[in-house]
């Protein structure tokens, strides 16, 4: 009986099975009410905001749309956004792998506390994340006077933007890897070591192939956050047009100048990035499910 059920699960959508059974289905009117309310909520809160971005972006025609994207300030915002992502994503990838390795492969005191601390940037308000770097690096800050002496600008300059972006994306990779490595256990790697493999060989040939989907998942999520971060970056940027503006900050400036079509045109680039992120994410989940079967 259990085998037949398992087989049915594998062959059909689980929802089909649940809908077909007396014990796990609702009266049709209940079902359609739940579906109707849930999908209306979905449409109003998720679909409409997405649709309005593209509608407003194209409200004044394609020409205005393209002009807004190729304008020099927009291009420099694209460059800075890419720079922040190109630095912060690899840094946090290395951090996530190191942290997950230490946490799941060894036993030590304070492990739970460490896991909680890694999650901290998720629960800190983005504005506070920006403020902490102002407190350290600005001219009134801890090492501000020293920086001033050596003519290094961090706050209201590119390094500050990169630092704030690094902060808000710290947990992503570690958070995907830790549960997976925990579930897989240490036996395979220990066997490799006993058979004579060296440290990096174990990692490349045993660990990495097992976690590559989770790793990619963490990378695309942190990339989306890195490119889209607003609050933290806004505090440290100083909003210097063409110099310290990322794409989200450029959207804000255009919007506040009542250049709505241009603001939504730039916003539509970021919305496309979000859609690509979701598509890649769904694809990874599908691949991971296939590998699991």
């Amino acid at each position, binding site marked *: 009986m259990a085998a037949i059920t398992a087989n049915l699960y594998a062959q059909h959508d689980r929802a089909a099975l649940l809908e077909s059974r007396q014990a796990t289905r609702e009266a049709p009117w209940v079902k359609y009410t739940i579906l109707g309310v849930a999908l209306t909520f979905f449409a109003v809160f998720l679909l409409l905001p997405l649709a309005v971005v593209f509608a407003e972006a194209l409200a004044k025609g394609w020409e205005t749309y393209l002009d807004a994207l190729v304008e020099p300030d927009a291009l420099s915002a694209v460059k800075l956004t890419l720079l922040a992502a190109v630095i912060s994503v690899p840094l946090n990838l290395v951090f996530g792998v190191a942290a997950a390795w230490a946490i799941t492969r060894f036993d030590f005191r304070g492990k739970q506390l460490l896991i909680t601390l890694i999650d901290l940037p998720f629960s800190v308000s983005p504005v506070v994340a920006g403020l*902490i770097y102002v407190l350290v690096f600005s001219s009134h800050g801890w090492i501000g006077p020293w920086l001033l002496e050596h003519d290094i600008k961090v706050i209201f300059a590119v390094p500050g933007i990169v630092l704030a972006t690094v*902060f808000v994306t710290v947990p992503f990779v570690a958070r995907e890897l830790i549960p997976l490595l925990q579930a897989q256990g240490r036996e395979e790697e220990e066997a490799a*070591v006993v058979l004579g493999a060296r440290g990096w060989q174990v990692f490349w040939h045993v660990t990495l192939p097992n976690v590559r989907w989770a790793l990619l998942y963490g990378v695309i999520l942190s990339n989306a956050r890195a490119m889209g971060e607003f609050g933290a970056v806004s505090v440290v940027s100083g909003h210097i047009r063409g110099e310290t503006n990322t794409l989200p900050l450029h959207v804000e400036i255009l919007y506040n100048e009542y250049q709505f079509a241009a603001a939504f045109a730039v916003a539509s680039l970021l919305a496309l990035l979000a859609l690509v992120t979701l598509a890649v994410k769904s694809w990874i989940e599908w691949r991971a499910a296939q590998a699991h079967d």
Partner: protein
Amino acid sequence: MTKAPTLPRVLPGFGLSLGFTLTYLSLVVLIPLAAVFIRASSLSLEAFWDAVTAPRVLASYRLSFGMALLAAAINTVFGLLLAWSLVRYRFPGKKLVDALVDLPFALPTAVAGIALTALYAGNGWLGQYLEPLGIKVAFGPLGVLVALVFIGLPFVVRTVQPVLEDLETELEEAATSLGAHRWQTFRHVILPVLQPALMTGFALAFARAVGEYGSVIFIAGNIPMVSEITPLMIISKLEQYDYAGATAIASVMLVASFLLLLAINGLQAWQARRNGRSE
């Protein structure tokens, strides 16, 4: 008496990986965060108290925490319905709906902010029908609520969905064969299993909403005493170069974040224990 032999560490890289982790985390996260408390402690108690209890700041706590609670509650109800629909029913476009639920995680908050403002402004797609009814969403407290519902939506769906998927149908079958109505089965069999996940989703949505900035400031209107959120108070102090005031308010928000993080960890541990027992 012989002591149990301690197993030698087989795997390499303990010192390197933990050392790097702790150094990086300290430099990027812990030391800068400590700066807030050290800066705040340099204020006299009176100055600190004045900064964090100014009437405008108090009004901002009421708005930020009140609306975050309300938004998390709304998301708990509708997130459950959405998760239920995704697990239990077939409908056209289901895969698309499932993928788009994560939109608020992927869409930059500034984009969400201007999109919601455009929707709910007086001439917007939704605003033009709501304003004649006397419901003013954009540029007021209701706008804050709408933005916080948007950014919190995925949390409840994504914590409840896996639990619903793993739910053993045998429990429902047993309840039905013992004569329970569908509603009784839901109320007494399914809901207790979902409860830890629902509370975790609620707490995650609430924690995110309290600190949210980007999606809110465009639609809020930012009217003093009426629709200013707490993160905005920090920004406006900074703009007046009042670093001490900004730091004082930030330390209040940080303490709230720590407490929420502890609560969420506790809830997740509870959920793990629950799931472990039911298997």
